């Protein structure tokens, strides 16, 4: 039965989305109340799921089922664009037009892949080895921040036009964290 609570609570985020959509559609005087009501219902759904489905399980289930319900609602409101008129949104931001130089591409790939990975691994290792707390917690938290930092480093190095700056920061972080981890060298 507890699995069905996610379905039973789904109308709350859905109604919240409906209120937010109304606020988005109509910039009238009641807009702040609609926004407040919409967000309140989303938070209420998360809060109500805790006693019904468990402290972590409930919010995770509501986020998954609620997102699906809201996506269906947004999809149901699909609107046909006028193909003959050029909309203002056609002036969407364009990616920066970088000069295509092979070595810059390879260097950027090296920074985003191996070097950002090594720097992220170094940070994870430093947390696992040098941070206070229980060994297993340090290892899991250290392990969990590796993909997150690697992803952040990847996003940054691929975006930053100044490759040498990215190289310097990543190389320094990798040297410092790996150095600290291997110097301490024991859990």
């Amino acid at each position, binding site marked *: 039965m*507890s*699995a*069905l609570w*996610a379905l039973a609570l789904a109308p709350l985020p859905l109604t919240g989305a409906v209120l*937010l*959509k109304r606020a*988005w*559609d109509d*910039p009238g005087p009641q807009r702040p109340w609609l926004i407040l009501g919409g967000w309140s219902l989303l938070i209420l759904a998360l809060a109500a799921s805790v006693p019904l*489905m*468990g402290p972590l*399980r409930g919010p*995770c*289930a509501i*986020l*998954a089922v609620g*997102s*699906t319900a*809201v*996506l269906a609602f*947004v*999809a149901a*409101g*699909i*609107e*046909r*664009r*006028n*193909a003959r*008129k050029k*909309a*203002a*949104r056609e002036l*969407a*931001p364009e*990616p*920066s037009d970088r000069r295509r130089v092979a070595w810059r591409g390879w260097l950027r790939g090296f920074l*985003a892949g191996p070097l950002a990975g090594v720097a992220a*691994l170094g940070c*994870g*290792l430093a947390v696992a*080895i040098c941070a206070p*707390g*229980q060994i*297993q917690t*340090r*290892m*899991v938290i250290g*392990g969990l921040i590796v*993909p997150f930092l*690697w*992803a*952040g480093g*990847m*996003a940054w190095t*691929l*975006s*930053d036009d100044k490759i040498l700056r990215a190289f310097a920061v990543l190389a320094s972080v990798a040297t410092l964290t790996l150095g600290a*981890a291997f110097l301490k060298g*024991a859990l």
Partner: protein
Amino acid sequence: MDASPDKIAREKSKALGKPIWPKIPADFVRAMLAGHSALGLAFAALIYLVCFSGSVAVFTQEFSRWEQPQGPVLQGVSPQAVDVAVQGALAKIPQAHDLLVRLPTPDHPRLSIHGDDAAGGEHTYVADHAGRLVGEARTPWTEFQAELHTVLHLPRAWGGFVVGLTGVALLSSLISGVLSHPRVFKDAFAFRWGGSKRLQEADLHNRISVWGLPFHLVVSLTGAFLGLTTIIVGVLALATFKGDASKAYALFQGPTVKDDPRPAAKVIDVRSGLGSVAARYPDARATYIYVEHPGERGQHAIINLATDGRLSRGETVVVDGAGQILGEVGYESGSLGFRVLSAMTPLHFGWFGGWPVKVAYFLLGLGLTAVTSSGVAIWLARRRDKGRPAPGLERLWVAFVWSQPVAYAFSNFVSLFSPTPTPVATWGLATLTACLAAVFGAPAAVSIALRRICAGLLALIAVAHGALYGSHMADPAGWAVDCALLAAALILALTTRATRPQTVSR
């Protein structure tokens, strides 16, 4: 109605006043977009493959039941029956190094025992309510699809690393995607179709991205962590245990039993082990048991226990050969690290909230595949708009996108009839053939043709499965999956007819 949509939009934006979201500098957005685009393109095919296979993998238990629908279907089983089943399996595999006993759960109502024989052959026996072995399970396609998602059918260490790296790339795309689309939250409800191909795909890309963001973040982070575990633990072991990774893993294994290969006086008593565990953990339900080194003096069992209401892979308890509890790992009672680790797998696969969460994970997973597909489509449309079309790539991408449902369906269809199924080979062959279709047609035609082939195959699978097992389909999951396959076939077929959504005027 004399106002155009553009005029309404302008008036609305004036009335809305100053946005509360801080304005992101245009140069920053342009640089982020360049990085987002480069990363998305570099990993597009891998991300697409991992996301599509992950969406299907949500229903691994259901596919396993569907492949062996004749049962026996069990809601529960006595410890005595489990012991009988273990003894029966040991009689068939006397040299077994270890046995994996899966107990009936609501997701997988079967009692099965898996073990390797002396020649390295793998066997999975299915038992009835009394523990009698009634047959050997054959779930080749389920195993194929699960391994495609977790290791891409590469050697385990390499496959896990590639999938983990794909998770990192996906996570990175999410970060750069949010930063490079300043209107992504402001336009959260603007879902438009038609007009320019690029804007149409952008609306699809951005709407699914923003509303699925919590799910996308969770699956990419947990997926990257699970995939990269080997390399993270390896480096950690290098720094602290002189390269001995087993010492790092031992920190998460609870009480250890010394290996002693001398023959034991009596083979391990699983029944009393389950009895001891039930007495100490009355609210928990045993879900699986690893019987290690059965028949040796160092024999012991690792029993996994699930408790309702917890987001956890379950607690793990170690019992010795006489069924006495040696201790627990601490996945549910231990420190924060244990509990976070324990939540990773169910959180990644959606195996924590029953079928509503599974369906949501499946749909959101398909949404992520659509986001990946539309990301490449946006880049191709932008090239076309700028007068640098890449028609070959456009055809190839469409063919690759639709090759996966076709290849999955084809490999499943062949597995259903073949006595010696090789789903990896049939999947690979179907993928290649579908991609070759790119040579022969325009993108729209390729897309429609592959969708129709897929719809036909799905319908054929459902009908053939019903005909093969209809008279002895003990498990309702068999019928449920057949119905779902027919529904998917119908929806896919309909998408090839109605290419445009209904007009909703504002």
